[in-house]
């Protein structure tokens, strides 16, 4: 390609360069019969009881981090949003907003990892759009993905089904994505083996749903972390949640970063975690299936639904005290001393 291997405004202009970008680059990564028709809309048949439909935009900095990049994140994030409502993800769209001058090789690296993630999750990218904005009009690249999935007949996940005694389960350690990204930010030179947990969870979730019809609620605890997800569940509900600090998996490398910066793993973002509320009688088999899945080896029962205090999340601390776990307000800021 011309242009010194960089994205120029004309790549988003709708003319020949746009066409070249789509045919020579996009289709190379996302080619499939639906997309390759290159119509104004993707057209396909869907059969199912109920559909799930979602969208999310991704703006991570740095674009490439240990364990993933913005492309993997954009696919996994939307796939996971579909999977946690009990849907089987099928088709995704990919909208790119690219800053003029962005290197084509970087774009291809991102598209490659989107392709790999899509393949792994068994989904297809069937529609897309590219806009190029002037230098400083965007920070390198922003990605939006929307996704559609089908929900199997008879499956109903709803907080209305949650009752006292249900167990809370998570598929592994907290905070790995946020800690991995922070460790790469300007101002830090952490030497760490940390990698982001960024991964599509649809296969893990399908395995769980195939053995239990008593999974009542699921959420992927991304920004705001486990604390935000659990608080959203209990808000204005006639029950609370008690979680036990000693049961919550957190890798030492994440703990280390939290100790240094004064962060709390409960508030940190995850991109490959799912928290489930499951009826007590199904807990063992759900846990077994999860622990046998590569993305759930460290799965653990971390708490249960309790009658009091209503609408609150309570943590039993390692030393045996109790405290309220609230949502984080605004951004986590490092403490001074």
């Amino acid at each position, binding site marked *: 390609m011309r242009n010194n291997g960089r994205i120029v405004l004309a790549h988003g202009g709708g003319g020949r360069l746009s066409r070249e970008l789509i045919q020579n680059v996009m289709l190379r990564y996302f080619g499939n019969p639906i997309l390759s028709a290159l119509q104004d809309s993707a057209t396909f048949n869907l059969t199912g009881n109920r559909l799930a439909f979602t969208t999310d935009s991704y703006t991570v900095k740095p674009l490439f981090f240990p364990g993933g990049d913005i492309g993997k994140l954009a696919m996994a994030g939307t796939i996971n949003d579909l999977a946690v409502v009990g849907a089987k993800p099928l088709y995704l769209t990919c909208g790119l907003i690219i800053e003029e001058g962005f290197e084509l090789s970087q774009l291809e690296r991102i598209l490659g990892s989107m392709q790999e993630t899509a393949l792994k999750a068994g989904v297809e990218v069937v529609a897309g759009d590219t806009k190029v904005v002037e230098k400083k009009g965007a920070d390198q690249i922003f990605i939006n993905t929307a996704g559609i999935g089908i929900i199997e007949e008879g499956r109903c996940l709803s907080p209305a089904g949650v009752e006292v005694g249900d167990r809370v389960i998570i598929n592994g350690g907290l905070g790995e994505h946020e800690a991995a990204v922070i460790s790469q930010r300007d*101002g*830090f030179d952490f030497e760490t083996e940390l990698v982001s947990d960024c991964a599509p969870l649809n296969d893990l979730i399908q395995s769980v749903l195939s053995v239990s019809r008593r999974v009542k609620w699921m959420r992927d605890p991304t920004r705001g972390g486990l604390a935000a997800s659990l608080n959203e569940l209990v808000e204005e509900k006639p029950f609370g949640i008690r979680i036990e600090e*000693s049961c919550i998996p957190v890798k*030492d490398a994440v*703990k*280390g970063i939290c*100790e240094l*910066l*004064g962060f*709390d793993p409960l508030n940190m973002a995850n991109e490959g975690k799912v928290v489930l509320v499951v009826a007590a009688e199904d807990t063992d088999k759900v846990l077994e299936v999860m622990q046998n899945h590569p993305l759930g080896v460290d799965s653990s029962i971390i708490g249960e639904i309790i009658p009091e205090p209503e609408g609150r999340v309570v*943590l*039993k*601390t*390692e*030393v*045996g*005290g*109790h*405290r*309220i776990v*609230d949502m984080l*307000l*605004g951004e986590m*800021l*490092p*403490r*001074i*001393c």
Partner: protein
Amino acid sequence: MKFVDEFRSSIAARRLAGEIKSVAGGTEITFMEVCGGHTIAIFKYGLRDLLPSGIRLISGPGCPVCVTNTGFIDRAAALSRLGGVTIVTFGDMIRVPGSSSSLGAEKARGADVRVVYSAMEAVAIAGENPDRKIVFLGIGFETTAPTIAATILQAELSGLSNFFVLSALKTMPNALKALVDGGDVGIQGFICPGHVSAVTGPGIYRFLVEDYGIPCVISGFEPTDLLQTILLLARQVVTGTAAVENQYTRTVKPDGNPLARKMMNAVFEPCEMEWRGLGRIPGSGLKLRDEFVRFDAHQHFDVEIEPTRDNPGCICGDVMRGARTPLECKLFKSVCTPDNPAGACMVSEEGTCATYYKYA
């Protein structure tokens, strides 16, 4: 995690809690934890659940953001509005409300306000931006003062003429004295700040023991540290003794950190300082010495500051002295929340009001 889990052992915690109970029994005792980091740890680990009901813990003036007075925020906001000035600060400061503005609000209006994790980053920013004047907000106690002194020494070494520090640095001893002289709080023992003591050494608390007969124990920040500290304090109270004890021996040495103090004293000298909640206290602040005056933002910039206005309902001052708790403030949780703070105690992670809001 090694060197962390050991200090959070539930077995050790229960044993210490048992000992505290057998020493203190039902006696009513009031201790003050001076440092905001201790307040957080007490709530975060739910330590009050483990203590006998007679032991009351009150939070003191040891959160550097919280004790920063409104006038300082107003001055920083005014500086940020000057052309060519970049304000560099630790994170919490951007949300502290001034009289009519905050650094966050100025940033949203286009001012160049940057958050850093280390004071030394401010010097780097000055090096990279020779056409701008970089003002670092020097807040904190003896813990951060040496690192800020180091930035000035570094700026001098690098020949920077565009680096300035706006100092509101504070020192502990005279503030503690003012607190005790105030007399309305009834403190029977101090849980003394660990990181301040790591720099100063335990000597700075001797006057509390000798002149006022108040037990002092320097504490670490892990749950078993704090429980052991409370045990040591309770023993002193019950036996009627008063001494400075050091629970945090793995960090606080008998002579503190002489090198850090040397840097601090080379750059700064004591001055009168205004504390939110405690007022003006002689010899409780640090200002730049004459030989470093060219780095002093107070001297270099001539800006007009708006008349200081605090929210009249805010009782941050009393909270900071431990005279009242956030629960006694009528703004708490209604008007004043972490995303819309009326006073500084609600802003900082370490602020008493923010901690009560989050955990209590």
